């Protein structure tokens, strides 16, 4: 167990943006909520996954809805407390701890704000190890954990307890209810016992985010190159370096889809990279070779500052380094690839791990 204070939150926010692989929503609101909660309720207890008793009830938390609504109608902070009370009542058991379901973007910080308020510890684990756009794209789902019973809560005090036959129904009903409740709600979702958490989550993810954030900030302070440190922490590889020359965007089925073209510089001179995204970066390739693909992580960093650039923030002229990082092994199983592999997102190729693509399998 260790304590998370304001300094740690600043670092985690940067790490969350990096593991957000270009999507996941701006962690800014989540960061401010966590900072205020720490100010009011004190530092947050972070538990290693091994410290969780097998029979303890763990309830992950997240937001659902439009990030644009959340930046205008900022949460109350109490809505998640209500959600947790409902689930406790329904299951007839005390909640031992909460945790994020998603490591990237805004959802990695919301459970921290909630935990400070509830006096609950947060488990150093999540269900993605990155950001993904849909509720069933979590490792818990791969292990047969049900998303429900789940509770949606709004700032007005409304609570909706859902018990559905599967995750598809959970998603369908929750999306509709979210609109009626004002476009952005807090969720208590995927309740599990400690034993299941240990088998089906990705551990040490908040610590990793914190270390990423710290190394980027420190490198910046000392005018050093932050990217090498990030690669070491994430077992990542530089895929490409260059300048964005073109971005082709379209909105399709509610997703911000598009392709960015990057003209090579440094050792990549004379070459061109194409980066395909749908909310998150999903596939990076040159004319003759695929460099990295989902569910492995692709992140674009500003070459000067090492700070992550989101898919919306990508624009012509940006000088960037594209890095690829291996995903959690659970995503590379047949079931994992079925849910988050290249074919699920409409790319007609078989998954090949980044280590193989980079020719560095031995590392």
């Amino acid at each position, binding site marked *: 167990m260790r304590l998370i204070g304001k300094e740690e939150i600043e670092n985690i926010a940067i790490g969350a943006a990096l593991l957000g692989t270009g999507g996941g929503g701006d962690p800014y609101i989540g960061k401010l909520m966590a900072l205020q909660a720490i100010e009011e309720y004190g530092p947050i207890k972070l538990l290693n996954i091994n410290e969780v008793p097998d029979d303890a009830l763990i309830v992950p938390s997240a937001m659902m809805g439009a990030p644009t609504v959340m930046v*205008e109608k900022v949460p109350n902070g109490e809505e998640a407390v209500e959600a947790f009370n409902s689930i406790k009542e329904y299951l007839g058991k005390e909640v031992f701890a909460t945790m994020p379901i998603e490591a990237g973007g805004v959802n990695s910080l919301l459970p921290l704000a909630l935990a400070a308020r509830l006096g609950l510890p947060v488990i150093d684990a999540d269900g993605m190890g990155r950001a993904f756009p849909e509720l069933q794209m979590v490792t818990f789902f791969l292990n047969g954990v049900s998303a429900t019973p789940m509770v949606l809560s709004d700032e*007005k005090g409304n609570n909706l307890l859902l018990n559905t036959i599967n995750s598809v129904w959970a998603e369908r009903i929750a999306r509709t209810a979210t609109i009626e409740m004002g476009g952005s709600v807090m969720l208590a979702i995927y309740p599990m016992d400690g034993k299941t958490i240990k088998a089906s989550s990705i551990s040490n993810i908040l610590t990793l985010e914190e270390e990423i954030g710290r190394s980027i900030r420190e490198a910046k302070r000392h005018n050093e190159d932050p990217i090498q440190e990030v690669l070491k922490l994430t077992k990542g590889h530089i895929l490409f370096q260059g300048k964005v020359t073109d971005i082709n965007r379209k909105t399709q089925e509610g997703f911000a889809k598009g392709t960015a073209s990057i003209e090579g510089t440094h050792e990549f001179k004379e070459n061109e990279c194409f980066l395909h995204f749908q909310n998150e970066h999903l596939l990076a390739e040159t004319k003759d070779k695929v460099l990295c693909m989902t569910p492995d992580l692709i992140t674009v960093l500003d070459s000067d500052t090492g700070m992550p650039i989101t898919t919306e923030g990508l624009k*012509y002229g940006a000088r960037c380094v594209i890095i690829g990082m291996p995903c959690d092994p659970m995503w590379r199983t047949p079931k994992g690839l079925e849910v988050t592999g290249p074919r699920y997102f409409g790319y007609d190729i078989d998954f090949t791990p980044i280590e193989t693509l980079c020719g560095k399998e031995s590392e």
Partner: protein
Amino acid sequence: MTNYRIGIDVGGTHTDAVILDELYNVISEVKSPTSEDVSSGIYQAMREVVKSSDVPVDKIQYAMLGTTHCTNAIVERKRLNKVAVIRIGAPATLAIKPLVGVPDDLKDILGKHMYIVRGGHEFDGREIVQLDEEHIYEIANEIKGHVDSVAITSVFSPVSNSHETKVAEIIGKVLGNDVALSLSSEIGSVGLLERENATILNAAIVDVARLTADGFVQALKKEGIHAKVFFGQNDGTLMSVEYTVKYPILTIACGPTNSLRGASYLTDKSDALVVDVGGTTTDVGVLISSFPRQSSLAVDIGGVRTNFRMPDIASIGLGGGTIVRINEQGDFEIGPDSVGHQLPKKGLIFGGDTLTTTDVAVALGKAELGNRELVSHLNLELLERIYDKMVELVEETIDKMKTSGDPVPVILVGGGSILFPTQLKGASEVIKPNSFGVANAIGSAISQVSGQVERIFSIDEFGREKTLELAKGMARQEAINAGADPDELQIVDLEDIPLAYLPGNATKIRVKAAGALA
């Protein structure tokens, strides 16, 4: 009968002033150092330009001022109003209080009276809860006599501002007319915290704006000039003194905007990149249909994250007075610090002791200024490398501001622009207009007046096309009322946001029309 106008623009290094005739011919131009208090530098530039022009003072009809007073007050945390902050949004928004994330020294000054009351709207225009009017009366009585400016921000006020206007009405009733009221729906767009910050900053600089305006009017009167006074705002149009005092934050970043507008006027180009080389920095902006491209990201002012409209400007620490340092290994460093307006004293070519970018350009014969003999001892090969780096820095900034790889026209303005060559990478042509040194003051003088309408229309009634025309007509009328010439009006900004779940296909439409003074 000929009439004249004065345009003044305050930069980091110089305060520039011009007098134009009614056909916008430049009658006289001066550059004068920017003073620490800003005002005395403005008055001096104004007196000098009037004197050197020989124009009869009673023929000066308009005076346009683009100033940095408001920005400076925020950055220096000085001369700020006593502000009350009212947010309408509870029970939502309580998880992040106002001014969280704002630097502590500013929070201490502006955060003394903060309130969050019940009210606000959903994204679709429904009320989250009813506005708690009783609470507003309580607050009004509590802050009476303790504050002179109130910032009012309601959740989703860009969709419905009815709670903000109701609160303003109550506060006005209790506190009287001397208290300034800033409404967020008139200042920023969706994004509560950033809009609230912008509104609080606006409330904090109301007095600074008032004193600046009064001082300028008095200074003109002292010279016998009874001109109508306008302030430049950051979209390239003018505000009356009354409007400036209400929305002073709109003056922030009017300087780069004035340069862009002046460059457009001097070259007759409506779409181009403008590189403004001052004494300390180089600002690169983009002209689209003669107006600056607006930034789409959150903008930091004095460490505060805001989201009101700002010109999209890339600024680098490279100007005519930028200091160049050479070490023993023959490596060099350019800036970012500058000798500023002391260049004529400190630069080598003027007999000073500091190597500046201007010295480098003169030594290489790229510019003619001062005494080239005084830099003839420098190593030419090294100077070439330094100069190449200077050009590269500018070219890289130009490239970052472009939206595609295609070459575009580049206009070079500002006193420091003599440093740079007439060929730049990524430019289809490089234009250095006459009066390039005071393009910003010219931009200030030729600014147009605008009229804006922002309200919710029911599209079903007339259809989208007709409704937009209706709104445009209203904006045009506003501009004409503000003094614009009806024959030269243009629609310069148009935005419509459909509001879901409201009967009649309700849409919020914002239109701005701008044109020359009649």
